[in-house]
């Protein structure tokens, strides 16, 4: 089942046409990766999906982004519930300079979410779902910036969970991590796939090949090719795709 679908999505930064007629379908409970050379618009596309680009001055969009068949580009879209539904993990791990515990309860505080669960339980479950509970259960009060970068990145994912998103956007989530930590985050992504839909931007083609079900290849603001990951990496349809995955572009 498709959970996100863009129809002829165009985006301009002032005069600069950054996305051109992008049509991308994203399957529920799957991992979709977006690859392409630097500056081709991967982050831009990702940030349209939770409308984080709105913060940039002089931005203009046309087309449609359907999330569960609702066009989130329509005026009057509730950005608060959109962003609760579509969480984001950033390139650099960016926990707040607070305790592990407070980082996870931040979203609850903001949204004043009352639940039958105690805060302690929510923190525990969130940490468990990013496989961090055993490491941190005795360090809940310790400062998040004292964790390793990998733990910080997991914490940033855990921070989303109490808000109950369905979709997780990840913009190069492993680029600040070493190969071992990267491997472990990838395992986590597999784990999360059961409950969440993941869209990941990556420069690491091996990573895209390893983790994702579908892959989109972008070039100069266009989605050149979109297909099953296995197909893209073994038998791409477009010459540009082949050139890129065989390393003939940056």
């Amino acid at each position, binding site marked *: 089942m498709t959970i996100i679908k863009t129809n002829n999505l165009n985006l301009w930064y002032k005069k600069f046409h950054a996305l051109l007629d992008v049509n991308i379908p994203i399957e529920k409970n799957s991992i979709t990766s977006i690859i392409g050379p630097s500056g081709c618009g991967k982050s831009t596309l990702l940030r349209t999906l939770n409308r984080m680009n709105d913060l940039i001055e002089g931005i203009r969009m046309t087309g449609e982004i359907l999330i569960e068949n609702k066009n989130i580009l329509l005026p009057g879209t509730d950005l608060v519930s959109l962003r609760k539904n579509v969480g984001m993990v950033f390139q650099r791990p960016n926990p707040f300079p607070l305790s592990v515990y407070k980082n996870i309860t931040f979203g609850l505080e*903001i949204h004043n979410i009352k639940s039958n669960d105690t805060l302690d339980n929510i923190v525990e479950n969130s940490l468990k779902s990013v496989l961090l509970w055993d490491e941190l259960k005795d360090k809940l009060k310790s400062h998040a910036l004292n964790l390793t970068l990998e733990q910080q990145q997991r914490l940033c994912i855990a921070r989303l969970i109490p808000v109950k998103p369905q979709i997780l956007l990840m913009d190069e989530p492993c680029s600040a991590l070493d190969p071992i930590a990267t491997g472990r985050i990838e395992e986590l992504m597999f784990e999360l796939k059961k409950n969440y839909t993941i869209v990941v931007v990556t420069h690491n083609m091996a990573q895209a090949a390893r983790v994702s079900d579908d892959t989109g290849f972008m070039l100069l603001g266009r989605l050149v090719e979109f297909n099953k990951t296995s197909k893209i990496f073994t038998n791409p349809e477009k010459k540009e795709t082949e050139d890129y995955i065989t390393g003939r572009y940056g």
Partner: protein
Amino acid sequence: MNSKLTQKIAFSFLFLCALITIAPVLLIVVIIVVNGISAISWDFLTTSPTNGMRSGGIFPAIVGTFYLAAGATVISLPLGVMGGIYLSEYSKDNFFTRILKLGIVNLAGVPSIVYGLFGLSLFVIYLKLGASLVSGCLTLAIMALPAIITATDAALSSVPQSFREVSLSLGATKWQTIRHAVLPHALPGIITGTVLSNARITGETAPILFTVAAFYLPHLPGSVLDQVMALPYHLYVISTQIPGISKSTTYGTALVLIAFTLSLNLFGIIIRTHLRRQKKW
């Protein structure tokens, strides 16, 4: 010349410069302490002046200065912080904002007597508040505002942009983001800026001269519309208008004023170090 020698000379020279800058401060403090310490007693701090201010204590002036400092803070802190939030988080970088910022920078440089006259004409005369505690607090608050706004603006701007992004991406509104993800991390800078600027203004004479300070008023104010005595003005009065006053009384008063200002500064610095220890990024 041998390079080690050059280095030695350079270091000595720099050290000398550092010494020259702090020597006057130390000298002033030493002179005041030496001459004034003998006047300090429990009675001096807790009784009213008597005998045409030649004897007795300075209690009403201490209380007056305390009220002025507290009142000015209560008024200037919320206004200044909100102004700083506007400048840092809401204003667009356009002509109007640049004029506003330029105005604030210039206000910080306006001589204190001008604030005094402004307070006199606006609060005392035009708003008919008379020479009173409230006029004095308002005048001092206006004088403190530029520093508080600037400190808030700077403290907010130094909070990493990523905090705002994360918070917004979690669905927080702009105000929630400022309130929960930005302001708490800017607090040390804001508090220090406020305390330091208010420590400075409590030592000023000019702004309170026409707006609140009483020449001689040996009792405490009954309402905010009463005048009060204040340490800086009292010091000015006893050192220029009262012939035959003992040297130790004048220096003792100066000592109390300096101690008041320095302890406010110290307080600000302690809060800052305490809050800084909790933040690291």
